[in-house]
């Protein structure tokens, strides 16, 4: 698949010229952390006219993981914690998993939940289940396999999150006036573009489901501008996203998980935005197995990650940004995760 075609400077410049013809001042939110990173990595903000503000949304699963998850994991003895690498440096209320590992906690970085299952065949293992709809089916499938193979040493801490309910909470909160959404391409592969229809129908705001190549993002912005007056959900990522998403993946996801309220760092509890492990798979539920409780612990009051995640402020507006909080010494999760808005701003936009 020659994605170079999506990186042709001349095509990109043509689309940018079209974008410049629009005179409206607008605020668009890129919901997904991978979009945030791509926008930074390709230097897209610098190509856009100043009237178009791109703000980052809550779409970084690592950033929205409550500190309580880190605290609970840090207490565990004699069990290996398998996690995606990004979580290592996320602050809990008294330190990170990386620091806890230095003091003896067993932590292994994995790239796939299936790797954690293999690990569990040697040592007792908890997989930290963080992720959105992109990642959840794989975690669900792994739990199913664990049951089939009867791997009693394996469990999952369910800390997954669902994107549409968080978006709804954000829009209904009316904290930020957003003129359009760049919707997460790979979450949409699973849930389908129709999952966002409530945004134009209920709130009169449009959205474009888009991919991660520079041309994808820029065309997405152009389409948002063209449709300001007739808000709708447009699927610009048709090469992999369908209207209804991947039914097989959805089936596995809901066979293992049930929808419930979830705690988002910086946003608080959001109804129906998370998942719990169903009774049939209770033996793989780390919450039950180890008696863990995810609670709302007050964060550092100076840290404004919560406002960043809601698009209320851009990272440089936080008094800690770059002065106290940087990737070397991150205070909040948005600076830790490689997909966090603050990290992306620090890295690409200063």
């Amino acid at each position, binding site marked *: 698949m020659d994605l170079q075609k999506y990186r042709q400077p001349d095509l990109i410049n043509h689309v940018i010229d079209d974008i410049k013809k629009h005179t409206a001042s607008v605020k668009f939110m890129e919901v997904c952390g991978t979009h945030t990173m791509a926008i930074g990595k390709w230097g897209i903000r610098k190509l856009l006219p100043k009237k178009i503000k791109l703000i980052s949304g809550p779409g970084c699963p690592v950033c929205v993981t409550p500190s309580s998850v880190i605290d609970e994991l840090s207490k565990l003895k004699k069990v290996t914690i398998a996690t995606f690498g990004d979580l290592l440096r996320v602050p809990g209320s008294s330190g990170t998993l990386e620091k806890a590992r230095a003091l003896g906690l067993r932590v292994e970085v994995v*790239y796939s939940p299936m790797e954690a299952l293999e690990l569990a065949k040697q040592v007792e293992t908890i997989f930290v289940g963080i992720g959105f709809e*992109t990642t959840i*089916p*794989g975690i669900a499938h792994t739990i199913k396999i664990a049951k089939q193979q009867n791997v009693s040493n394996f469990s999952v801490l369910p800390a997954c999150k669902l994107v549409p309910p968080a978006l709804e909470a954000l829009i209904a909160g009316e904290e930020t006036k957003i003129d359009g959404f760049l919707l997460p391409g790979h979450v949409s592969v699973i849930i389908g573009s129709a999952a966002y229809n409530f945004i134009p129908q209920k709130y009169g705001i449009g959205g474009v489901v888009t991919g991660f190549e520079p041309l994808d993002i820029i065309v997405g912005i152009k389409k948002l501008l063209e449709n300001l007056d007739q808000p709708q959900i447009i699927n610009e990522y*048709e090469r992999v996203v369908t209207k209804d998403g991947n039914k097989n993946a959805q089936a596995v996801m809901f066979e293992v998980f049930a929808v419930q309220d979830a705690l988002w760092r910086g946003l608080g509890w959001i109804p129906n935005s998370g998942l719990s492990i169903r009774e049939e798979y209770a033996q793989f539920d780390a919450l039950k197995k180890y008696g863990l409780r995810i609670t709302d612990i007050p964060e550092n009051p100076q840290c404004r990650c919560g406002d960043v995640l809601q698009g209320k402020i851009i990272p440089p507006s936080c008094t800690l940004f770059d002065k106290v909080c940087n990737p070397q010494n991150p205070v909040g999760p948005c600076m830790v995760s490689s997909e966090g808005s603050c990290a992306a701003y620090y890295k690409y936009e200063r």
Partner: protein
Amino acid sequence: MSKMCLAIPGRLIKNLDGNKGIVDLGGVSKEISLAFIPNAIEGDWIIIHTGFGLEIMSEKDAFEMINILQEAYK
């Protein structure tokens, strides 16, 4: 690190049993799970994330957009 929603296209070389498959990634191959796309066939481009094929990518759609743009800006 493990970019949470990062997924990349790879080409299916072999569908092993509708459950697992071998994909080509720029000249190296890797086994992935086809649990969500059991009907994928050899030669399909597949979006891969954390060891799972999430969806088959349509090459036709991939280049249709480019072609439309190229036509528009001739």
